[in-house]
C-alpha cells in the first residue's frame, strides 16, 4: 500500500468519525420529556379536566394519609369526644392529647400545611389556565366550570389553613421560580379570598343533578353548587357573619335536591338496621346508591378491582374500630367491621352521657357497645363478652360503626376501602341552627335542630335549651367520626372549654391544653426555609 492510500484511509476515517456528529448540533442535547406532561400541554379542555381530577386525587390524600397511622386520631382524640388508649398510640396524635408536646416541628401541623399549599398551587395553575383570555378552544361557560371547581377546592384548602393556623401566606398565582419571602396575610384577606372563590364557585358550579358524567355515569363526587354553599356557610360562621351563613344553608335546604334519609334503603335494607345506619355502609353511601342526603361524598374503590381506587391506606377503620379479636374466642368478621385496633376510644361523656336511649344514632347498629363470642367451635360461642376491666379500653371498647369495612381478601386490612361522606344535609341543618342561634333566632335554631332530631327519634329540643354547647353536642351526636371534630371546636373557639369539661378520662388524660391550642403551630421548617422574610409563629409556640 502506498502512503497515499494510508492517508486517504486516515482522512476518510476521521471524516466518518466526525460525520457521526453531523447531527451533533444543539438539538442533540435537547431534553425531550417522554413520560411526564409539560404543564403547557394541559391548558385545553381535556388537560384542564385531568388537572381537576388531579385536585380531587390530592384532596383525598388528606383523608387517606397513612404514613403515621394515628393520623385520624389527631383530629378527634384529645377533644371532647375521644382519648387514646395508652397501648394503642402511634405517635403523630400524641401532642394532640398531651398538648405539652405540641411543638413547631409537629408532624400533623406540617402535613396539613403542606397538603393545603399543594392543593392551592395545583388549583392556582388551573385557574390561571382557565382564565387565560388566549384560551379560545373553550367557551366562557366551559372555562368557568373548570375555574369554579378549582376555586372551590382552593377555598376548601384555605379554609382549613385559616381554621388551623389563622393568618397564613396568601398565594393565588402559580409560581415560576422559587420564592422564600412569604409573609402571613391578615385573616381578613384570607377570608375574603375564600369568600370570593366560593361565591364564584356557587354561582358557576352545576347543581348536583347536572354534574359531568364519566364512563360509569354521573360523577357525583365532582364539585357542585351546594358544596360551595355549605362551605361558604361554615366560613361565614367562622367569620362571625351568621346571617350570610343562614342564607347559604337556606339555599341548599330550599333547593329541593337533597332530603334526609328517613327510611331503610340500599344493600342492607332487608337486614336488621335503621335508616341512619344504612347511610354508612360502603355501597350505600353515594347519591347514585340512594343516599339523597349526601351533598359531597368522596369515593374510594378497592384497588384490587379498580386501578387507583385509593390514594393511600386510609386508617379510619383501624383508628375507630375496636380490637375485639384480641379477646380469645373472638374472630375478625364483617359484622363487627373488620379489623380495628382502637387507636382512639370514645370518651365516657360520649358513651354514657351524650345520647338518649331512644336516639337512633345511639342504636347498636350505629354505636356498638356489646360483643358476642363469634369463633365457631368456641365453648362460649354466642354468649356476650363480659364488659369489664381493661379490655373495655380498646379490645371491646364501645365504638361508632360508621367506619366499618371488611374485605375477606384482606383481613389484616391495613387500608380501609370506603367512601367519605364529607357533606350531607343533616349537617346543613346543624350549620343553619348555629347561624340562627348566633343571630338570636332561638326558635328557628330549635326548629333546625329538631329536623335532625326528629329523624333520629330523639326528643325535640325547645328554644330555651338551645346554646352553642347544645349545638356542638348535637353535632357530636349526628356527625360523630364524620366531621373533623377538632376543626369544629377550633372554628367555634370551644376546644379548650369543651375538652376540659367533657374529656375527663383518667387513663391517658388530656394534659397541658391551653388557649394557644386554638391554633396549631406554623411548621418550623417553613419558617426556617422562608429565609428572606419572617414567617411569624403563632403565639406561645
Amino acid at each position, binding site marked *: 500500500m502506498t*502512503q*497515499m492510500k*494510508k492517508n*486517504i*484511509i486516515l*482522512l476518510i476515517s*476521521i471524516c466518518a*468519525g*466526525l460525520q*457521526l456528529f453531523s447531527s*451533533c448540533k444543539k438539538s*442533540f*442535547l435537547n*431534553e425531550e*420529556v417522554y*413520560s*411526564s406532561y*409539560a*404543564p403547557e400541554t*394541559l391548558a385545553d379542555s381535556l*388537560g384542564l379536566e385531568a*388537572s381537576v*381530577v*388531579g385536585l*380531587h*386525587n390530592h384532596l*383525598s390524600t388528606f383523608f387517606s394519609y397513612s404514613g403515621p397511622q394515628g393520623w385520624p386520631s389527631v383530629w378527634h382524640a384529645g377533644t371532647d369526644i375521644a382519648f387514646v388508649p*395508652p397501648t394503642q*398510640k402511634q*405517635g403523630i396524635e*400524641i401532642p394532640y392529647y398531651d398538648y405539652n408536646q405540641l*411543638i413547631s416541628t409537629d408532624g400533623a401541623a406540617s402535613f396539613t400545611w*403542606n397538603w393545603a399549599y*399543594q392543593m392551592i*398551587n*395545583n388549583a392556582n395553575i388551573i385557574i390561571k389556565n382557565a382564565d387565560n383570555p388566549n384560551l379560545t378552544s373553550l367557551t366562557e361557560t366551559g372555562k368557568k366550570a373548570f375555574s369554579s371547581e378549582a376555586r372551590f377546592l382552593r377555598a376548601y384548602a384555605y379554609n382549613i389553613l385559616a381554621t388551623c393556623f389563622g393568618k397564613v*401566606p396568601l398565594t393565588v398565582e402559580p*409560581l415560576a421560580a*422559587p*420564592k*422564600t419571602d412569604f409573609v402571613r396575610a391578615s385573616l381578613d384577606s384570607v377570608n375574603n379570598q375564600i369568600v370570593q372563590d366560593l361565591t364564584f364557585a356557587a354561582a358557576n358550579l352545576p347543581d348536583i343533578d347536572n354534574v359531568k358524567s*364519566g*364512563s360509569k*355515569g*354521573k360523577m357525583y*363526587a*365532582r364539585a357542585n353548587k351546594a358544596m360551595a354553599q355549605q362551605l361558604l356557610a361554615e366560613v361565614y360562621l367562622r367569620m362571625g357573619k351568621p346571617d350570610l351563613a343562614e342564607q347559604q344553608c337556606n339555599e341548599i335546604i330550599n333547593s329541593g335536591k337533597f332530603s334526609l334519609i328517613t327510611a331503610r334503603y340500599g344493600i342492607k335494607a332487608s337486614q336488621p338496621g335503621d335508616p341512619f345506619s344504612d347511610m354508612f355502609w360502603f355501597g350505600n353511601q353515594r347519591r*347514585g346508591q340512594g343516599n339523597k342526603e349526601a351533598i359531597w361524598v368522596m369515593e*374510594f374503590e378497592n*384497588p*384490587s*378491582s379498580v*386501578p*387507583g381506587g385509593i390514594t393511600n391506606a386510609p386508617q379510619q377503620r383501624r383508628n375507630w374500630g375496636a380490637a375485639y379479636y384480641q379477646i380469645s374466642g373472638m374472630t*375478625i368478621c364483617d359484622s363487627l367491621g373488620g379489623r380495628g385496633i382502637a387507636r382512639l376510644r370514645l370518651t365516657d361523656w360520649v358513651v354514657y352521657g351524650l345520647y338518649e336511649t331512644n336516639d337512633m344514632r345511639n342504636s347498636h347498629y350505629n354505636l356498638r357497645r356489646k360483643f358476642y363470642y363469634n369463633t365457631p367451635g368456641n365453648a362460649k360461642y354466642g354468649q356476650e363478652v363480659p364488659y369489664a376491666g*381493661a379490655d373495655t379500653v380498646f379490645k371491646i371498647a364501645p365504638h361508632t360503626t360508621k367506619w366499618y369495612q371488611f374485605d375477606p381478601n384482606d383481613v389484616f386490612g391495613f387500608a380501609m376501602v370506603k367512601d367519605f361522606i364529607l357533606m350531607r344535609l343533616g349537617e346543613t341543618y346543624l350549620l343553619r341552627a348555629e347561624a340562627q342561634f348566633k343571630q338570636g333566632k332561638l326558635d328557628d335554631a330549635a326548629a333546625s335542630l329538631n329536623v335532625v332530631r326528629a329523624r333520629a327519634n330523639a326528643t325535640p329540643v325547645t328554644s330555651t335549651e338551645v346554646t352553642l354547647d347544645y349545638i356542638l353536642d348535637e353535632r357530636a351526636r349526628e356527625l360523630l367520626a364524620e366531621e373533623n371534630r377538632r376543626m369544629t371546636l377550633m372554628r367555634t373557639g370551644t376546644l379548650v372549654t369543651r375538652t376540659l369539661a367533657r374529656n375527663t378520662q383518667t387513663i391517658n388524660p388530656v394534659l397541658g391544653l391551653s388557649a394557644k391550642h386554638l391554633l396549631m403551630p406554623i411548621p418550623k421548617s*417553613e419558617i*426556617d*426555609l422562608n429565609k428572606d422574610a419572617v*414567617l411569624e409563629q403563632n403565639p406561645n409556640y
Partner: protein
Amino acid sequence: MPRTAASLIKCLLMMKMVILLICGFSLQSIAGKGFAQDKITLKLENFSLKKTFKIIEKQTSFRFVYNDDILPESQRVSINVQAQPLDDVMKKLLERTSLTFKIVGNNLVVIAEAAGDANQDKAADFTLTVTGKILAENYQPLAGVSIVEKGTSNGTTSKEDGSFSLAVSDDKAILVASYIGYKQIEVALNGKTDISITLQEEKREMDEVIVVGYGSKKRSDVTGSVASVPKTRLSQLPVTNVLHAIEGSVPGVNITQTSSVPGSSASVLIRGQNTITAGSGPFIVVDGVPFSKTGSVTNDINPNDIASIEILKDASATAIYGVNGANGVILITTKRGTTGKPVIRYNGYMGFDNIAHMLDPLSPEAYVQKYADWFKQVNPTQTQTNVLPNAFEVANYNAGKTTDWLKEVTRQGIMQDHNISVSGGTKEVKYYLSGDFMKQLGAVKGYQYHRASLRSNLDANITDYLSVGTSLSYANNNYDGGRANFYLAAAMSPYGTLYNNVGNYEIYPMYPELLYENPLLGLYTDRTDRSNNLTGNGYMEIKPGGVLKGLKYRLNAGYTYVTTRFGSYRGRSANNTIGAANVSSSETNNWVIENILTYEKNFGVHHIDLTGLYSAQQRNYFATAFNGTGFINDELSFNNMSAATTLGAATIFSNYSGSYRDKYSLASQMGRINYAYDGRYLLTVTARRDGSSVMGANTDKYGLFPSFALACNISKENFMKSVAFIQDLKLRGSYGKSGNEAIPIYGTVTTAGTVRFPFSGASTIGVVASNLGNANLHWEEAKTFNAGVDFSILNNRISGSVDYYNTRTQDLLLRRNLPVVTGYFNILDNLGKTQNRGIEILLNTQNISGKDFQWQTSINFSSNKNRIVELYGDGKDDLGNRWFIGHPIGIIYDYKMIGVWQEGEDRSIDPTAKVGDLKFADINGDKAITPDDRTILGQRAPKWIGGLTNTFHYKNFHLNIFIQTFQGALKNNVTLTYADEAGRMNIPAETGYWTAENKSNTRPALSYTNSRGYGYASDNSYTRIKDVTLSYTFSKQMLDKLKLGSLTLYASGRNLYTFTDWIGWDPEHNYSFRGSGDWTNNYPLTRSIVFGANVTLR
C-alpha cells in the same frame, strides 16, 4: 452567557484548525515518497551514543543490546540522515569507535567491542547449539527476549513460544537474557544444552506502565494523582463485585458495603463528598470506554477479567473526563491477549459464607420478662393477666415450645466461582477469551446470586499502520428467589408458631397479632430478578507513519445493551388470598463514539505528545411494568398476566402498571498536551468541553474544564545522582477544574405527573404538578489543587507517595428545600460552595527480603476534611436542610442524649418525660427541651480511613493479611429504636433497657415512645481484619511432574473479625426499621472462607 459563547466559538475554531492541519499534513505526505518502517531519519547534534540508541528505539522497532561499560561516555556524535537504512546509520554512528554491531533476527541490534579478527573468526567455531525457553514468573513464555553470549556480540531473540536456539562457543558459556521491564539475568550453561530461563519482572514502581485517561504512561511520567489498586487484590479473593476488591486498599477512596445481600454492590466516595444533591459516585471507564451512565452496573464486570484498576483523583488526572470527573474516575482495564502460544487458565474457588457477628435476640425466658417489664411500664395501674400478649404465644408458652427464628431463616452459605480463559496470539492477532460462572448461596434462606459471563478481547494488526480490535462482554446476573425476611426473624417472638397444623408456615406466628408475618413466607413466593449486559466495544487505530510518524488516530465505538426483568407472585400460601403478580422489564441502549487523535514526537531531549478527543454518547431507557390481582389459583404465578381479574391494579405498596422512557446525551471535546524535558520536567495541560442534555434549557449546556499539572523527577537531576539512597523522587503539582452534571434527567424541566382517581367506579386519569423546573441550571464546578511527592528510597526498599489536595466546589447542584407555600417541596438549583481538603499517604516497604523469606508491608492512610463554605450567598445556615456553614455536608443534627431520667430527678426541664425516658441536654440553656436544643453531633463521613497489608513469603508459601479501618464517623443506629412496638417484638439481648430495678443510664424504658424522633446516633468506627489469604505456589520441578504451567492453591478468608463499639449487626451496614426503607437490605455481614486454585495448563 457571552463568556461561554466566546469559548464555544474558540473551541470550534480550534477543532477546525486541527482538522485543517491534519488534512494539510496528509496532502503533503501524499505528494512525497513512501517511507518504509525500517528507514531512519535522524538529526542530532552532540548526543551521547546511549541517548542516540534510545531515540532510535523510540522511533523504530529496533532494539539495542549492549554492555554499558563499552560505550564511550564522553564521546558525542552528531548525525543528520534522511530515511537511511539502519546499516548505514549504524556505520556512521560507530565509525569513530572501536565498536561493531550485528543485527540479530529482525530488529535486535547487538553492539560489542571489535576484538579484532580473532573474535569474528571465532564465530565459525560456534559449534555448540543451546536450545531453551524463556518464561516469565507465571510460566508464560516470553517472546522477543534478547539472549546474548556474555562478552560477545553473539545473540538471538526468543520466538513467540519463548523458545530460542543459539550456537555458543562452548558449554561454559554464560548467557545474558534481557527484556524490557524484566531484570537482566545471567545463566551459566555449566554443560547443559537445554535450559529454561525464568525472567523476573522488574518491579520498580516508577517504571510500571499505568493506564491514564485516554492513554497509558510510565508512572514516572505521570503528572497527576493516580492510584493503582494492588494486583494481589484482583485474584485469590472471594469477591463478586470489583468494588469489594478495592475497599480499603487505596488511599482517598472510601468504599462502603452497606449490605451483604448476595449480589449487592457498594457505594464509593473518592476524596470526600464534594456535592450535596448531585451524585457523588466516581465515573467508571472500562477499557477506555465509559461504563458509568451506560446502564451498566458494577456486577456486570467479572473481577477475574480485570488486569488492572487505576483511580484518578486530582483535577489534572480527571479533568479530561470533564463533566464526569469531579468525583474521581476509576479506570478498569481487562486482560488482553499477548503474543505467544495459547495459555489456558483456570481460576476457581469454593467456600462457605456465614454470619460474621450474631446479634442474639432475647432468649425465651428474657422475652417473657421483657413483656412483663413492658406491661408494667406502660400500664402501671393494671395487673398483667397473660404471660404473653397473643393467643399463639400463650399456647406455645404453655406447651413449652420455642422457635429459634434466626436459625430458621439462615442456612450454610456457599460461594463458588469458576473461570476459564484462553489467551495468546501472534504478532498479527491476539486474543483473550474468558468464561465465568459464579454462584453465591446466601446465608439467609432464599437469597442467592449467580452470574455467568463471557468476554472476548481481540486485537488485530491488519497492516503495519492499521490495527483493529474488539472488547465484547456479556454478563447475566441472576438474583432470583423468594426470600426470607431477616428483619422479621430477629423481631419474632420465640413463642411464635413456625408451622401450622398441616405443616406449612403459619402465616401469623403471633396470632392474633397480624402485624408480624412469618418471616419465612417469602419462600412461598415466586421471584425472578435478572439483568443482562451485552457490551461491544470496537476500535480502529491508524498510524500513518512517514512525516506523520507519531500521529495516531483511534476510533472507539461502543454499544451497551442492558436488559432487566423482574417478576414476582404472591399467592394464597404467602398470605395473599386473591394472588398478586407483577412483572417489569427495562431496556437500556447506549452508544458512544470517540475520535481520539494523538501525536507524539521527540525533539532531542524534548518529548511532546498531544491528544485530541471528539466524542458523543447517548443513552435511551425504556421500562414497562404490569401489576395484576385476582387469580383463580396460584398455578400460573406471574406467567400469564391476562389471568388476572384486574390488570393495572395497584396496592399501596406497588405502583400502577405503566411505562417510562428517557434519553440522555453528551457531546464532548478534549485536548491535552504533555510535554517532557529530558524525562525530568513534565507538563500536562488539558481542556475538556462537555455538553450535557440534563443542563437547563436556558443555558448552552456546555461547560469548559481546563487543568494543568507540573512534575519534576528530581532523582534524575545530576546533583541527585550522588545521593545513593534515593532511587526515585518526583514532585507533582496540579490545578484544574472538573464538572458535575449528576442530576436526574429532566431535573430542570417543570413537569406534571399522572395520577388516578375513581368516580362512580371508573378509574379516571388526573394530573398534578410534580417538579418545579429550573431552566437556568448549569454545571457544578470543582476546582482542585493537588501537590504530591512520589519516592523510592533505600534501594527501593521503601517507596510510596504523599498527596495533599484542596477541592473547592461551587455552583453546587443542590436540591434545595422550599417553603411548601410555593406548592413544591424542593427545586434543583446552583448554589453554594463546599471544600474538601485532605491528605493521602501510601507507603510500601520491603521489610525483609531474604532468599527464602520476604516480608512486605503496604500502608495507606487518608483523611478528608469536608465543609460547607457557603450556601445562598448570605452567610446563613439552612436549618431546614441541615446544612451548616463551616460544617461537613453529612452531619447528624439531633438532640444530645445525656442519660435516662431516674426516679427522684427533677424533670421540670422536660415536663412530659417519665422516669425511664431519655434525658437530653438543654443545649441553649433555656431550661426547656425544645427543638432548638438539637445540635450537630458529628459527621457521617469518616475522619480518616486506612488499610494495612502485610505480605509474607516463605519459599512457596505466601500469606497476605489485610486490615481495614474506618474512624471518626457517626451513624443513626436503627437497632436501638423500637418506639411503640417494644411490647410485641423481640429485641437484641445486647441493647438492654431501663427498668426500675436495673437503672440503665444509656437505654430507655420499654415504654419510651421516642416522640422527638431521636435517632440514636452512635460511633460506627471499626477496624476489620478484612482479608487473609494463604497461598502456595508450586515450584517449577513440581509443575514439571504435574505437567502444568503454573499452579497456585489458596485459602482465603474475608471479614474475619471486626473491632468496634457499635451495637448492631455491623457498623458498615445499613438497616431499616419495619415500615421504613427496604427490609430486603437487612442482611447480616457474612464471613467467607474459600479454597481456590489458579492453574495454567502447559
